């Protein structure tokens, strides 16, 4: 078996970890952000671990499940990892919707944290 590049391994285990936490207990997501982290959620900006976790835990659904369709990871020149995820989600009893999410991961004190996070539903214009 060919070894995956390191950034692929780190990126995909981050993605797995992130959505597993998101789907089971969003309040724990604080562990992956730092005070300099930025989240752009459907165009709305949030900065800092606290503001981000507040936003994510405040989303009005009790159950959510993500299913990842595809993910890509790249090393950046400053030793970070850029990740892009395309997938589908189901919140409570609503119909399934597509989404895109991108992350930048940075190694700080031997731990990988998320410094940037951007989320959009894959909803397109009509009319």
């Amino acid at each position, binding site marked *: 078996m060919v070894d995956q590049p390191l950034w692929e391994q780190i990126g995909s285990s981050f993605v797995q970890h992130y959505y597993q936490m998101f789907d089971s207990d969003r309040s724990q997501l604080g562990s992956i952000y730092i005070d300099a982290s930025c989240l752009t*959620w*459907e*165009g*709305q900006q949030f900065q800092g671990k606290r503001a981000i976790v507040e936003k994510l835990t405040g*989303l*009005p*659904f009790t159950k959510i499940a993500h299913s990842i369709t595809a993910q890509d990871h790249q090393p950046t020149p400053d030793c970070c990892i850029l990740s892009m995820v395309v997938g589908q989600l189901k*919140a*409570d009893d*609503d*119909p*399934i*919707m*597509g989404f895109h999410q991108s992350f930048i991961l940075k190694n700080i004190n031997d731990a990988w944290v998320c410094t940037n996070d951007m989320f*959009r*539903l*894959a*909803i*397109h*214009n*009509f*009319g």
Partner: protein
Amino acid sequence: MAGDAGSIPELDQKKYDAGEQVKIICLGDSAVGKSKLMERFLMDEYRPQQLSTYALTLYKHTATVGNKTVAIDFWDTAGQERFQSMHPSYYHKAHACIMVFDVQRKITYKNLANWYTELREFRPEIPCCVVANKIDADLKVTQRSFNFGKKQGIPFYFVSAADGTNVVKMFREMITRAVEYKQNPSDFMDEVLQELENFDLEEKEGPEADEVGLKTESPELE
């Protein structure tokens, strides 16, 4: 790429310019019962069309208003409001709007103000109403006053999608108002004032108040 949607007949919004086509949108927080209201009103003709790429559910209905047959598209969200994204085309060319909240959840009532502001950004004049859903859970709520409708000058209905109270009355009045707005958009303010005058009377008459010569037809839509 937006233009591509034009090739999907359901989403070609030019059709709403035609005389016999009306578009009515539903607004309100998730889980207030918007889809349940549709289901209750349409009953047997309940055949929603899920357009998942657009996070949209369409319900088609035919009604007779005066002596005219009107095709109505009810637009319902498919849950994107949980993520706070409503695309402007949701509002585009709408002729009326039904704003729903859940009497059991205060926050859904408070959020009406946000929904109303957004609606008026896109559609400053279309007829609108406020619907207090789930009154079956606790009939005492109908004694309480919810002033949002009055403050904005729009009709208010206590309904229950679960047992059907006031549902048909609310939808039929909104259909009539949508058609009237479409035929005569400039008379809109007069229309509102008149609605308001009638409003208190209707309240006392109860759910079965007469229904202005409106009857539904069994639709053949597919």
